[in-house]
């Protein structure tokens, strides 16, 4: 919140206008991070189990490419010339399945071969990016149907992000799925002894994170009206940052979706705020890095002694 107030103050000086009190600007702030937000909701659950997911940005690119290739209009230099003008559920399903499949591979490797999550998802991060490039040999997939691009227009991505966040907030807080997830991260051994099928549940969590990356890919492609292999570059780090700024502990077991949403919005406030006050582009990343660390340090201080 403090960050927003800083921009508010500087904004008055520079622009002579309010940074926060503009409905349109608040929308744009969340809109530009809504895809990061989708990934952050996924990675928060993975981090809760004590794991990490580095593959989400690359999976965004791969699912964006695959979704876009099934959403082309007949006039385009299409990837599949015989499969154009398809109803909107085809590309959406293709994108979601791609993401879920990538997540399933991550989860299986981690749960059944004991590969450390960092390594398994690092491998997926490299391979998925490679696959996205290989799919069309680096060519962008454009000229998409209007019914598909509508998914990314106006406030729709914000709506998708918030609905997803609410669903997983409820799932984590009020169902067995959530209890197992927290239990796994807090103490995997205890979880196993108390009868939770740890491997199966881990696989499930990674698959969901993959599914959300797939959803992120679909929304990205729809938003840009194009699928490109360079999409989602370093989104995984922004997503992890959003989650950690929101109070998720990297050692697992502690964190909430509401915190992740706040973390995501803080990233959005920064991006909009930098542009609003016209901060020099060379300086923006320097400040952003500092703010991420500062936010976590501040959070630590507030929770000192509270086992956080």
């Amino acid at each position, binding site marked *: 919140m403090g960050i927003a107030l800083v921009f508010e103050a500087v904004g008055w000086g520079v622009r002579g*206008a309010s940074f926060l009190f503009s409905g349109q600007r608040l*929308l744009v702030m969340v809109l530009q991070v809504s895809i990061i937000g989708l990934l952050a909701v996924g990675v928060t659950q993975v981090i809760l189990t004590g794991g990490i997911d580095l593959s989400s940005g690359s999976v965004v690119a791969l699912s964006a490419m695959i979704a876009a290739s099934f959403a082309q209009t007949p006039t385009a230099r299409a990837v599949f010339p015989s499969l154009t003008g398809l109803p909107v559920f085809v590309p959406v399903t293709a994108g979601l399945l791609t993401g879920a499949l990538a997540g399933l591979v991550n989860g299986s490797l981690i749960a059944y071969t004991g590969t450390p999550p960092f390594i398994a998802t690092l491998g997926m991060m490299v391979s998925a990016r490679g696959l996205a490039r290989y799919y069309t040999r680096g060519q962008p997939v*454009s*000229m998409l149907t209007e019914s598909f691009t509508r998914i990314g227009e106006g406030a729709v991505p914000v709506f998708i992000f918030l609905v997803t966040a609410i669903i997983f907030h409820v799932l984590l807080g009020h169902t067995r799925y959530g209890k197992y997830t927290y239990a796994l991260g807090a103490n995997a051994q205890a979880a196993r002894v108390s009868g939770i099928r740890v491997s199966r549940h881990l696989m499930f969590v990674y698959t969901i994170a993959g599914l959300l990356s797939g959803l992120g890919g679909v929304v990205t492609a729809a*938003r840009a009206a194009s699928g490109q292999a360079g999409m989602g570059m370093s989104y995984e780090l922004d997503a992890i940052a959003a989650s950690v700024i929101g109070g998720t502990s990297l050692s697992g077991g502690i964190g909430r979706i509401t915190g992740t949403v706040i973390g995501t919005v803080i990233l959005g406030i920064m*991006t909009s705020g930098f*542009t609003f006050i016209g901060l020099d*582009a060379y300086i923006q990343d320097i400040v952003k890095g500092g703010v991420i660390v500062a936010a976590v340090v501040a959070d630590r201080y507030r929770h000192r002694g509270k086992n956080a």
Partner: protein
Amino acid sequence: MLRRIVRFAGVLAALLILIGTSSCGTSTSPARQVVGVSMAYFDDNFLTILRAAMADYAKTFPGVVLQFTDAQGDVGKQLSQIQNFVAQGVVAIIANAADTSGTRSMTKVARDAGVPLVYVNRRPAEDTLPEGVVFVGSEELQAGTLEMEELARVMNYRGNVAIMVGELTSNGAQLRTKAVEQVVAKYPGMSIVEKQVGNFQRERGLDLMNNWLTAGTKIDAVAANNDEMAIGAIMAIRQAGIPDGKILVGGVDATPDGLAELVKGTLAVTVFQDARRQAKGAVDAAVALVRGERMDRFVWIPFELVTRDNYKSFLNR
């Protein structure tokens, strides 16, 4: 003990087979000449066209094979790729610099090994190039000048301009931006009101434009460093319900997507960078240097202005 001997023998056998096959490979086709190509990015739209054009054109030289690697925008990675090419014994190297200010060490590696080196598309920051090193590409300043002069003309040399800058480390972004600023400075009725980085990406262009529009800045024209960011700006303008043409948008590259917007009238101007001529020039230069022919150190391929009046001739280039 026995197991260890067996394992050692196995490794030895595998090595021998490897050496055998690799030497066979070279002896059966002595005319095969490998040219190593290190690209800054495999997933950049323009560079993909350039890469495909090089691969196509190289086929017209019997025996010449291009071997592509992706530096993923990393100078260090690119330098190791160049070193690997040299170690592998390629006849020449074509490099599309990941960072145009980091070319000095690549030039040195190639020079020390006596392997001809051709830089393509992104101009090395050095003022002069040594013997056996050539640059083939376009003058980036010209792209910005062509783009902004046309926008200025349509704007009647009056109004507010916003600039979308590409990747800060790229020579193209720096020089195109500089040229746009120089043109605007020439006309007293015009000024630059916004300037931010969009990393050459469509989504970033969209986000930037959204932010500017909601900040309430009065913008009459957007000069983007490439078509992708320009398209992002166009999408943001459309979604904000502002009528087409009220804010002029200019780009660079004349990609198929960019030309499609030009046809619709949403993109006012773009600048054609001739990927095929750059590709042809680079491969020709590599072949000429291998043959020991003398040639100019800088081969300039001109940019061309594209507007609604002449776009048709660019649709299939």
